[in-house]
């Protein structure tokens, strides 16, 4: 299953990169299509985070990890360093678990 997933994701990423330059030969995508696809990204990212934060039963897990994520994302909103945000999220989570 792992290797099938690897191959499929790799093929898909290449296809998206190559589609327009190779197949459309430089013709542009319609502006509304480009804009809608762009607009769909933030909701999708938020949904991915939400699914990550749900526990086995599908309910939002209020735990050390949620606190860590909140700390990391808050810091990111302030400082805009992705690495700093991820390290903070991990560190806060680990610290709360340790106590």
């Amino acid at each position, binding site marked *: 299953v792992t290797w099938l997933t690897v191959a499929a994701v*790799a093929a898909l990423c290449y296809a998206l990169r190559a589609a327009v330059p190779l197949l459309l030969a*430089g013709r542009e995508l319609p502006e509304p299509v480009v804009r809608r696809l762009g*607009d769909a990204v933030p909701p999708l990212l938020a*949904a991915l*985070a939400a*699914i990550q934060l749900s526990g086995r039963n599908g309910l939002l897990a209020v735990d050390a990890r949620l606190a860590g994520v909140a700390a990391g994302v808050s810091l990111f909103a302030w400082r805009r360093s992705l690495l700093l945000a991820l390290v903070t*999220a991990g560190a806060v989570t680990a610290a709360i678990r340790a106590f």
Partner: protein
Amino acid sequence: MTVVTKDSAPQVEASYVDGIRLVLPFAAADALDGLAFGAIAAGLGLGVVAPIVLSATAFSGSAQFAALTVISNHGSLLAVLVAAAALNARYLAFGASLAPALSRRRLRRALEVQFVTDMSWALAHRGGRISRHVLVGAGATSLAAWTTGTALGVLLGGAVGGYRAVGLDAALPAFFLCLAVERVRERGGAARAAGGGVAALCLAPFLPVGLPLLVVLAGALAWRRS
């Protein structure tokens, strides 16, 4: 901003080396992101080779992290692909803007597109004229950094052992939320983003993993700008 090959000759076309030089400050970040990806993937039991191969071929942080999310929740392959396609649909737009500047030779063109990233695309546009040399130089450097980082992450992650102990399981949701924050800051749509998150939270208890993502994607595409 002009891309300059030799300091005195701005009209000379930018070279691969210019791309490498321009992207170097960001390549360090790519390597560290790759490190995080490798460590998390290893922690989820994907083995040593698969995460490295994925980084070398798919070469897309958002798609690869999305794949981990679905895999770790035992979601379907279809859900992985839907999430990856939606997150990377921007490549279609990148391709449209780059197409006129790529090589005329088909095989070369097919190779050049593999080096499209957010960063290499943006750098290639500096200086008014799009440079495929900058695109390839920058993209190849990022690819090397990202893949090397992943390899180190897989090895270190395996050495650290339980990834919960160092809070690595918090990095994934934090990563997605940070990207969402960044996009919203640049292009607005806070309400849409919040709506997507809340909808997924509400649907998650009732639907298998991939479906909330599909519902959110469909809803977002149907959403009309006021």
